[in-house]
């Protein structure tokens, strides 16, 4: 096999004087005075100069080396990489939305405000919470805003408290958010079945504890079935229950966190409610709260007054603004479009099919890969490399080999309570055929691990680059091109 030639950087194919287009000669008077006094750059040093053909081919070739959810299954556990319907893109790009400036006066953006209010109403209905802010820019930002709301409510009672409890199966961002909010984090160990050990929680739940941060279903894909009991224990000692809603894809239209005793929740609209997010954003992490916490929501809150929408800044107990303007508005439009095009039955089907697909994969692979926790799983399942380790094969080798099968690898080495984890979340959008392609690839790799492990250790074989120097990339990252002297 011939190794593909490395795609050069656009700077490396640059040659002085090349250009993509030619403008006609100026036939109007020159008005240099319009920009008098404005600091202008005469030229950008080393700005690449390429022809139209070169620039088109360069970026097209790069795009073809990418993998995306429009090409195939993308089973990254806890990331909910579902297919994103194109109608969402079309609507959010509509000039009426995309062209409206965030500083326009209220009376000119009544439609946009109606979008936000309607989305809030749907999110309240889906989660069982009483009020929402749509400002936070992504999940971890929502966590911080939510914890600030809890802190503000406790401070209003005269005791901010000191500790936040977090199970070892929670999302990794939870401890960071609690810490940034000034709390010490205490870890609660999982029991044998991978859920919160209620006795351990009860022992840890003192009057010093501000909140329990729980991810439900947790990162093992297991539903915390004692959540009602757990919420009761936390509430009895005056604490709040924060739920990380990143795994909401398992629950939509079936179960509501508000009914489980959750006081504060963030959603990841870019995951559950469909926005392309593989490139790291933009996201959206709305926070929902129970009535008691509503006064602390960020400003402005959208209110209705005399048949019009207005922005209410007069909220003395608010934690303040957490994001400029109204959050990532285009993501909010996509989420509303997604919910309205699915309707109530469709929203319920998200969860039903997501859980069905994950269990189909789990059942199909349980003889080939080790399952540390036998507890039934919801929208994702966590295998490990334990059986393959006997042949010297690790989860990294399995993940790299999947790339040769044209499949994006699952989340690896997380959650930490499963050594050598492979965390698989297919989402509801995969067809039986696509699920079978993934299962077939995983089975072929399990067989190779026994019969021909060296192939796995050297994988991937058919990609543009092979194994990367991860240590080198972390220690000495080369972040920009520099002209060779």
């Amino acid at each position, binding site marked *: 096999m011939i190794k593909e030639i490395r795609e050069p950087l656009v700077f490396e194919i640059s040659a002085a004087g090349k250009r993509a287009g030619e403008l006609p000669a100026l036939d109007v008077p020159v008005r240099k005075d319009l920009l008098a006094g404005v600091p202008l750059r005469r030229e950008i040093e080393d700005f690449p100069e390429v022809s139209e053909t070169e620039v088109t081919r360069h970026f097209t070739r790069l795009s073809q080396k990418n993998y995306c959810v429009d090409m195939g299954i993308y089973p990254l556990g806890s990331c909910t990489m579902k297919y994103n319907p194109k109608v969402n893109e079309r609507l959010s790009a509509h000039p009426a939305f995309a062209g409206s400036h965030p500083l326009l006066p209220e009376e000119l953006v009544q439609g946009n405000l109606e979008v936000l209010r309607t989305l809030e109403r749907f999110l309240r209905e889906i989660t069982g919470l009483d009020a929402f802010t749509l400002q936070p820019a992504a999940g971890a930002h929502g966590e911080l805003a939510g914890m600030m709301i809890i802190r503000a409510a406790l401070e209003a009672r005269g005791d901010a408290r000191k500790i936040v409890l977090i199970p070892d199966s929670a999302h990794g961002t939870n401890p960071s958010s609690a810490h940034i909010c000034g709390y010490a984090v205490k870890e609660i160990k999982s029991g044998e079945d991978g859920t919160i050990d209620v006795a351990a929680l009860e022992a840890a739940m003192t009057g010093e504890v501000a909140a329990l941060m729980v991810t439900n279903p947790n990162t093992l894909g297991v539903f915390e079935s004692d959540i009602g009991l757990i919420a009761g224990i936390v509430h009895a000692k005056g604490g709040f229950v924060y739920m990380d809603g990143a795994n909401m894809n398992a629950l939509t239209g079936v179960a509501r966190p508000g009914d489980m005793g959750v006081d504060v929740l963030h959603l990841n609209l870019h995951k559950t409610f469909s926005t392309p997010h593989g490139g790291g954003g933009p996201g959206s992490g709305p926070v929902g709260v129970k009535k008691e916490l509503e006064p602390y929501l960020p400003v402005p809150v959208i209110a209705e007054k005399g048949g019009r929408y207005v922005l209410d800044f007069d909220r003395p107990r608010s934690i303040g603004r957490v994001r400029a303007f109204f959050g990532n508005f285009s993501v909010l439009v996509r989420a509303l479009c997604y919910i309205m095009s699915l309707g109530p039955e469709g929203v319920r089907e998200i969860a039903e099919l997501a859980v069905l697909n994950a269990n189909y994969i789990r059942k199909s692979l349980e003889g080939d890969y080790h399952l*540390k926790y036998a507890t039934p799983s919801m929208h994702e399942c966590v295998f490990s490399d334990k059986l393959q380790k006997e042949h010297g094969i690790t989860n990294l080798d399995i993940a790299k080999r999947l790339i040769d099968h044209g499949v994006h690898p699952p989340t690896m*080495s*997380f959650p930490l309570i499963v*050594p050598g984890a492979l965390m698989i979340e297919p989402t509801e959008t995969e067809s039986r055929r696509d699920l079978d392609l993934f299962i077939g690839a995983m089975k072929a790799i399990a067989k190779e691990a026994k019969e021909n492990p060296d192939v796995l250790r050297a994988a991937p074989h058919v990609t543009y680059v092979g194994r990367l120097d*991860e*240590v080198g990339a*972390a*220690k000495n990252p080369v972040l920009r091109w520099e002209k060779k002297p």
Partner: protein
Amino acid sequence: MYPNDLRYSKDHEWVKVEGGEAVVGITDFAQHQLGDIIFVELPPVGKELELKQSLGVVESVKSVSDIYAPVSGVVAAVNESLGQAADLLNKDPHGQGWIARIKIKDAKDLDGLLSAADYEKFLEGLERS
């Protein structure tokens, strides 16, 4: 595999007692689980540590983990060479990859640590699960 002159915690730290000081590092099992280590955050010399308090952070290509003080006391010295060569934790975890020396406050803390044989038994239990 695990040296007999060291004692071990269930959080996978090792301790070597030298005079009134405890040399502390992470075990071979820990470095193996973490994978290639790229960065170690060391505590300031003179810092007082309670038992099980975080004394530093190890960052690998896979994860970021706290190192917990296996004994209480005051940080007497840290292994400065880890700043340039964090991979010593992978290459020689029980020797050149030591992390800190702690002046032991309460020798009773040592009673809570495992012998090499008991630590190996503990690891076997983990492997089975």
